[in-house]
């Protein structure tokens, strides 16, 4: 059932525990929200999941489908993790800013390219054939995100909202089974956030993905997440449906020391 199972992950930075015995799992096809106050360790979890950080202890088991045996992904490099189907976006947008929208997506497709380096040097037939396929796939993805008209623009010249979208598009281009979104709605106005909520919901269903989503915007989280995990001081303090989380006293305490959450 579970696509990913995080077991007892602890991450210590120079004596400071960023994560302490974190346990949670995500079912195949589930859309789960990961929330918590600033500095709770949400992005650290993403970095551990994607191989950017090596946790101090614990295991992460990944099983993209029933037939394959679960495997521990700790110790894999980020590029290897991308290849087995885990893709992510970044809190502080990391696009290839000086490259075109088209190239941003094409680079993400690279891991599925089969033609070799001699073929690139001498433009052998396999080069033309596969480059055409890459272009076709890229255009399909850009169309989904409504970015096809801007394919030749440099990523840094896109408006902020579209940069966020492009980053999600780029993550999708790697053909993931599990998508990690780090604050996709950060810096967006309510109108843009609503559109993004729709979009996430749509790609989730269309691409048959499991999604783990870090987000501060509660309207988004409460609306689309099936389940929510709450983190505070590097520990999971609550887990449940949006309704349960909304009324959990521990969560309310963690956020505002007593204030209620705005949905």
């Amino acid at each position, binding site marked *: 059932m579970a696509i990913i199972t995080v077991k007892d992950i602890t991450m210590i930075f120079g004596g400071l525990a960023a994560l302490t015995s974190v346990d949670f799992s995500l079912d195949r096809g589930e859309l789960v929200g990961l929330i918590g106050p600033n500095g709770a360790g949400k992005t650290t979890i993403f970095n551990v999941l994607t191989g950017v950080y090596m946790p101090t202890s614990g295991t992460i088991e990944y099983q993209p489908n029933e037939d394959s045996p679960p495997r521990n992904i700790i110790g894999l490099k980020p590029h290897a993790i991308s290849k087995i189907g885990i893709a992510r976006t970044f809190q502080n947008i990391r696009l290839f800013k000086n490259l075109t929208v088209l190239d941003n997506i094409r680079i993400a*497709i690279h891991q599925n390219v089969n033609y070799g380096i001699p073929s690139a040097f001498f433009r052998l037939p396999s080069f033309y054939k*596969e480059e055409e396929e*890459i272009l076709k796939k890229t255009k399909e993805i850009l169309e989904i995100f409504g970015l096809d008209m801007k394919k030749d623009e440099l990523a840094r010249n896109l408006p902020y909202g579209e940069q966020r979208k492009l980053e999600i598009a780029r993550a999708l281009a790697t053909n993931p089974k599990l998508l990690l979104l780090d604050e996709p709605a950060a810096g967006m106005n309510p109108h843009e956030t609503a559109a993004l909520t729709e979009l996430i919901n749509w790609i989730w269903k269309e691409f048959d993905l499991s999604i783990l989503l870090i987000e501060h915007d509660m309207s988004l989280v409460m609306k689309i997440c099936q389940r929510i995990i709450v983190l505070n001081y590097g520990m999971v303090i609550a887990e449940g449906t949006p309704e349960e989380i909304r009324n959990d006293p521990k969560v309310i305490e963690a956020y505002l020391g007593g204030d209620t959450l705005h949905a």
Partner: protein
Amino acid sequence: MKLSKNALISTKSNKKLINFLVIIAVYGIVQLLIFLGILGDYYQVTLAMICINIILAVSLNLVTGFTGQFSLGHAGFMAIGAYTCAIITKRYDSPLAFIIGIFAAAILAAIVGVLVGIPTLRLKGDYLAIATLGLAEIIRILILNFDSFTGGARGLGSIPQYTNWTWLYIFTISTIIVIKNFINSSHGRACISIREDEIASESVGINLTRYKVLAFVIGAFFAGIAGALYSSYFYYIKPGLFDFMKSIDILVIVVLGGMGSLTGSILASILLAIISTYLQSFAELRMIIYAILLLLIMIFRPQGLMGTKEFSLSKIFNKKQAPHENSAS
């Protein structure tokens, strides 16, 4: 874009045809000038230096300009190439040995590139620059010490001279085409993405080590060719020719032309050769003027002549046919 698909294809093949014709024409004109004795020895030497510098700069640009890995050791690979080809052709003096020598030079430089690249490319920025500088100096000192093969500090003389305009031109054009093809392929884009953002690049599945080492090795391969051509053209080499000042000379061409612009590297190679020829008459002042020029260029145009843009012949010929694609958006 209002062009039909047919029109698009025809502009594409037009472009290829124009490039092809220009490449042949440049070769023919220069060959004719040499044949008629109009292009004297002095200018021929300058021409040879331009070709060799283009090979060096274009290959370093792949490493530093496109992949973003700051190397100050390119002259080390050139030295390996120069000595390999020189030793082979001195032993077996024949045109075939020269060709074998060139490829042996390139392959040996590439192998050393792998050995040097795998450990050092973990380093970043200035640290990588200094490590590559150090390794190139070690290569030079080793050559200096293996004097039974290399002639030590005295150098190697009377190397058979096979490099001529034809060979120089063939290898220069091949280098440019191969590296241009690479950059405009999926593998090349993987390299460029490393320059743009390593973490993002890794997150979309690019194996950083693999592509950094790959760029480095391709760079070393072509630097090896440049070294081989050099030794066979000037028939005398010594370790001092390949010290870190030579690496810096190559880097200066790349930065001056624009990091990430192949045509920039080509233009800068030609421009610097012309400046250097012109400055010959200033003798001692030459290096001072060169230093001041470099300083002024860095202060007023740090992105180089071309930035990351490319200059295209066919674009000039086809100006009317190339409306901008994004006029609608």
